[in-house]
C-alpha cells in the first residue's frame, strides 16, 4: 500500500503530473493550488515511503522563490480595482491583488510539490524504459539518454579532476573575477572534449552490440500498466477536479 506511488507506471505518472500543471495554470484563485498542495501531501503520506527530511530540505529553495513571487506580485501587480485593505508606505494593496499574489505563490508551491512527488518516487531508468514502451519514444533517444545518465558519475569525476589539476598548475595566478570566469571556461572545454570522445565510443559500443535503433519486439523486463495505476490516476483526477471546482466556488 505505501509503495503504490513508487510502483506506479512512470509514464502514466508523468502524464498526470504534466496535465495537472497545465490545468492549474488556468486558475487564478488561491484556494485551488492550496487544496491541491494538501492533497499531494496526503497522497505522499498514504501511498509512498519518502524521506521527509530530504523532502523539506528540497522544498526550501522553492519556498524562498515562492516568497519572492508573493511580494513582487503584490508590488508590481497591474493596478486593479477592489477594496483597499492595507496601505504600507505609499502603496495600496487591494483584496484582489492579495488574492492574485497568493494564488501565484501557492501555484509555485504546488508545482514544486508535484515535481518532488515525481522525482522522489520514480526510478530514472524505469522512467526512460517506460517512456519507450508506453509513449513510443524511439529506442535511439531512449538508450542515448540512459547512456548519458550512466556516464554522469564519470563526467562529474572528470570535471573534479580537471578542476584540481588546473588548481595545481595555476596556484600562483591572480584570482580576480575575470580570471575566475576564464578558469571556468578553461575547465569546461576539456570536460566537453571528454564528453565528445565518450559519446563517440559509447555509440560505437552500442552499434557493435547490434543496436540498430529500430523499435523492439521483446523486452527482458517489460513495464506494464496495472490496475493500481488506473486507481491512482482516478484519485489524482478527483483531487484535481475537486480542488478546481471548490476553489472557483469559494472565491466567488
Amino acid at each position, binding site marked *: 500500500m505505501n509503495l503504490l506511488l513508487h510502483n506506479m507506471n512512470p509514464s502514466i505518472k*508523468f502524464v498526470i503530473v*504534466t496535465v495537472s*500543471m497545465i490545468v492549474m*495554470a488556468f486558475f*487564478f484563485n488561491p484556494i485551488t493550488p492550496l487544496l491541491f498542495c494538501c492533497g499531494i501531501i496526503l497522497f505522499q503520506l498514504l501511498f509512498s515511503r519518502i524521506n521527509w527530511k530530504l523532502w523539506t530540505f*528540497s522544498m526550501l*529553495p*522553492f519556498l*524562498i*522563490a515562492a*516568497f*519572492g*513571487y508573493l*511580494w*513582487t*506580485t503584490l508590488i*508590481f*501587480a*497591474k493596478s486593479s480595482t477592489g477594496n483597499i485593505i492595507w496601505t504600507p508606505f505609499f502603496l495600496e494593496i487591494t483584496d484582489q491583488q492579495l488574492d*492574485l*499574489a497568493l494564488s*501565484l505563490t501557492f*501555484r*509555485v508551491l504546488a*508545482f*514544486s510539490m*508535484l*515535481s*518532488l512527488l*515525481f*522525482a*522522489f518516487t520514480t526510478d530514472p531508468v524505469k522512467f*526512460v524504459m517506460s517512456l519507450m514502451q508506453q509513449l513510443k519514444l*524511439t529506442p*535511439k*533517444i531512449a538508450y*542515448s*539518454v540512459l*547512456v*548519458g*545518465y550512466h*556516464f*554522469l558519475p564519470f*563526467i562529474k569525476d572528470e570535471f573534479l579532476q580537471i578542476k584540481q589539476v588546473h588548481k595545481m598548475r595555476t596556484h600562483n595566478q591572480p584570482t580576480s573575477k575575470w580570471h575566475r570566469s576564464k578558469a571556468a*571556461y578553461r575547465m569546461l*572545454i576539456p570536460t*566537453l*572534449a571528454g*564528453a*565528445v*570522445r*565518450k*559519446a*563517440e565510443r559509447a*555509440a*560505437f559500443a*552500442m*552499434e557493435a552490440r547490434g*543496436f540498430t*535503433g529500430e523499435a523492439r519486439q521483446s523486452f527482458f523486463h517489460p513495464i506494464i500498466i496495472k490496475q493500481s495505476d488506473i486507481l491512482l490516476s482516478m484519485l489524482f483526477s478527483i483531487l484535481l477536479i475537486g480542488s478546481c471546482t471548490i476553489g472557483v466556488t469559494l472565491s466567488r
Partner: protein
Amino acid sequence: MLKDWKLKEVVLMSLFGVVFGIVYLIFIHIGNIWAGLIGPIAYEWMFGIWFIVSIISMYIIRKPGAALLPETLAALIEVLLGNAVGPRLILSGIVQGLGAEAAFAVTRYRHFNLAVLMLAGAGSAVFSFIYGYFISGYAALDPALVAWMFTLRVLSGMIIAGIGGKYIADGLLATGSLRGYAISHSRKGDASA
C-alpha cells in the same frame, strides 16, 4: 526526422545534456535564491544560460532538430537527476528548444554565423517568455515590469546563449575533437556565408 541522425550524434546530444543539465541545475539554485530577494526578474538576466545547449549543438551538428533535441534531453536529464523542478522542466525545455529551432528553420539551416546564433538565442527567449506568461501568470503583473523582463530575457538570450555558445563551441572545435561532425566539414563554406 531521426532517420538521418547518426547514433553518435544522438549520444553526443545526450552527453551535452548531462554536462549542461548539471550547469543548469547549479544556476537554478542560484536563481531561486536571487528570486527570493528580488522576485522573478532575478532569472531574467541569466536566462540565456538555459538556451546555450541548443545553440552549441546546432552549431556543431547542423541538422534539423539539433536545437530542439538537446534542450529536451538536458531537461530530461535534469529530471532524472532527481532534483529541482521536475517534469515541468521537460515542457519548458521543449518550448525553449523550439524557439531556437524556429530561428534556424527560418534561415533554412544554411547559415550558422554569429547573427543567426544570436537570433536563435532571441528565439528561445521569446518562446520561453510566451510560455512563462501563461504558466507563471505574468499576466497578473504590471505591464511595464513585464516589458522589462522581456527585454532583459531577449538580451540575455542573444548575448549569453548566442555569443557565449559560439565562443564555447569554437573553443571545442579548436581542440580537434569535433572532426567527424558537420562543423568541421563546412568550416570554409561558413566563413564566406
